[in-house]
């Protein structure tokens, strides 16, 4: 009899708590960012397509659906680590097909070589190239994401990638790398 009673009481308690928990999970449900959105926020938005997807958003969606997280070359190790943290997995090394050098760069058109074919303009994912048919093109450096998608289409190879120079404004307090020189 006592056993039965105990089971009954415990069962009732379980029911009550279960109901409370169920109610709480509905009532206090937190609408989180969908995973793809969160991944997209981490990606560097160069829209370079080096991951094999047409832009960062499609790759973010693919990652959310189980694509490998180590395909973002411009983001490099940092981005992989952040995505790994988000997904709760071990950060894998960068995909071997990619250049490990992800120092920020901007594209630059060697203007005397440009023949005005507009192919790079069509390739640029962020509309950072100005120019029209048979007119010399130029790159708006501030808008350029350094994706190097314009390099391949150029028939005369007049586009090069230039690393962004270190200036006192963007210097990162790296005291160990200050060149100590005597000028005279």
């Amino acid at each position, binding site marked *: 009899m006592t056993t039965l009673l105990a089971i009954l009481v415990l069962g009732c308690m379980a029911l009550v708590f279960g109901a409370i928990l169920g109610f709480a999970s509905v009532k206090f449900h937190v609408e989180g960012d969908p995973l793809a959105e969160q991944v997209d926020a981490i*990606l*560097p*938005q*160069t*829209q370079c397509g080096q991951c094999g997807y047409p*832009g*960062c*958003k499609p790759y973010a969606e693919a990652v959310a659906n189980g694509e490998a997280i180590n395909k973002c070359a411009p983001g490099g190790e940092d981005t992989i680590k952040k995505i790994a943290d988000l997904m709760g997995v071990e950060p894998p090394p960068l995909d071997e097909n990619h250049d490990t050098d992800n120092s920020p760069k901007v594209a630059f058109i060697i203007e005397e*070589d440009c*023949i005005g074919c507009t192919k790079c303009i069509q390739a640029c*994912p*962020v*509309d*950072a190239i100005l120019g029209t048919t048979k007119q010399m093109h130029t790159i708006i450096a501030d*808008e350029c*994401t350094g994706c190097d998608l314009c390099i391949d289409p150029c*028939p*005369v*190879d*007049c586009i090069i990638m230039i690393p962004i120079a*270190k*200036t*006192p404004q*963007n*210097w*990162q*307090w*790296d*005291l160990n790398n*200050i*060149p*100590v*020189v*005597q*000028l*005279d």
Partner: protein
Amino acid sequence: MGSVIERIKRANFWTFHGGIHPPEQKFLTTDKPIRAVSIPEQLILPLQQHIGIAADLRVKIGDKVLKGQALTQSMHPMAVPIHAPTSGTITAIKDAVIAHPSGLSELCLFITPDGEDTWQERHICTDVSKLSHNEIIDKISSAGISGMGGAGFPTQVKISTRDKIQFLIINAAECEPYISADDLLIREHSPSILDGINILDRILSPEHILIGIENNKPEAIKVLQQATANNEKIQVCVLPTKYPTGGEKQLIQILTGQEVPSGVFPSSLGIVMQNIATCFAIADAVINDIPLIKRVVTVSGQALQKPQNVWSLLGTPVGFLLEQCGYPNKDKKHIIMGGPMMGYSLPSDQVPVVKTTNCILAPSEQEISSPYSTGTKEVECIRCGQCSDVCPSQLLPQELQWSAKAKDHQQLDKLNLFDCIECGACAYVCPSQIPLVHYYRVAKSEIRQQKQLDIKAEHAKVRFEARKERLARDKIAREEKHKAAAQARKARMNSGTSEAKTEKSAVAAALARVKAKKAQQTQGSDSVAAQTVAPPADNEQKSQVSAAIARAKAKKLAAQKNVATYKSEPENKLDDVKPTADDKKAKIAAAVAKAKARKLTEKNNDNAVDSDLAVDDNITNEAAVLASQAEAVVPANDKKAKIAAAVAKAKARKLAEKNNDNAVDSDLAVDDNITNEAAVLASQAEAVVPANDKKAKIAAAVAKAKARKLAQQQDKLAATPSEEKTNKHVKSEST
């Protein structure tokens, strides 16, 4: 509010949290007057010496400049001009190491003084009261005055505030050890300083003027009290000595009891602060028309034989000043610009004095030991909390330090890292000798960069989305246009007018022609070209259509030829097409050839890895293509020639790349490739010869480059033994 004023009048000031009392060491220089030093052999003037942006250059190399002449100019409020500190010649405008902790280089003007020290024409203002506010601000702005206390904020921006000003605070605290430049300036030039304060008083019309000065400068205090004795508005506030009293936020808190809210300027509280040296510069600029070209610099430190305050021209290399003060020639130098608490090490003694340089410190090894001689003494943080006890911003340095090491930017933000004024008090007291401020600076710059990257990424995303939308829109628009046009045509054809009839008949004729031509085509492509260029002279519309068809055919032909050439038939019929085709056709042909060439090279790259005979074949084909192409180009116009040249260049570059790849394999294929390439380029070069000058030049350059590359290749080949087996294999396949 009245109580605040009363409290100030009673000199019963507030206090700020924390603070430290480092050994002062001001006695090294306080007992000597400010010395005027001679003009150095060369002055180096960085274009930007303040917070903001550099102004635009107004002189060029070789220009003779007069003392006080503006060298840069700008209408931008955050741009402050610089002036020639003495008369002389601009000898160079180039990057040089600037006064910045990074030791990086920025654009500097190099002036070689002529020794005459000739002034430009000056307009000395005898009566300041006649000047309007705007005139005064203009004078201050064009004199290039920016804050001289350390940060270097453009003064005209500070004094152009529209806020109602209650307190004008003159900062004479000079709380850093060693520095006595302001002290000496007050003692020797108090009338000018007072003139400057009066000018600021006119512009800002504050209710009260407070001069904050630490009690370790008794003589300067006496001088100031005498000078301001008959001015009710000005009060000299003598403050207890404590570092960092001279910090803007700290001084405001001490004098008024108010805290400047995080992220806003003090002017929103009705407070403007100016450094006392800036007041002197303002007086000089407004009254004597002397722009900011010199300043008092404390040259101090126990390594010097004669530490003293000097009047230094801006742009004077630090080494020159040190020499004047008896700096021994040592193997290892530690030169600090600024005080020992907030100054930074210089990587060179050629760094020039700038507007914000108040001190140059050359300490002896006992005073400030080098981190290299002793090694880093940093040990683990034991959470003793001494750092948070002395932090004037009431931060938690030890927690910041952990988060900075862990790169936890969110936590750093929560701990208000950006309220850190980098005074260095925490690192000064830290028993574990952790370079706390350094960690914060690194973290700050990382966060700043991350923020910028985030902004840029967001921007790129927006632009990418916009582009995608635009492309989609264009596509829909195009489709709709096509649909509309088709419908219109249909409607027109069915309308039964004469026009429609002609159109209809034209279309029919065209269709018939196309059919006929198709039949002909089966007979042989050779005759096609001839036919296309002789269309039946129908009406205009018809001829246009036929022309279009001809063009399309030409394209097809070219494509066919590609196939042909791919099958390794060098005798293509491009020559037949060429004479009859018009300009446009030639261009198309060139473009096609270009495309093909690229495709081929791509193939070659793939093949090259296998290094079998296909490469060889391809290249031969390529050679043929290019030869024909080049020939085709000959009669064409200049533009075409240019395109061809560019293409050739591109190809040469690509070939070279490929060859490099092959060189690694170092088998015979490479050799073949090179020979082929040589043939290609030779033929191309030949073809180009009859063209104009430019083309010839390009050809020459290409040939040259090629020659060089060939030589390199051969060297490489010579270095690596060729593999007989592969060689044979290649040969057998090629036969």
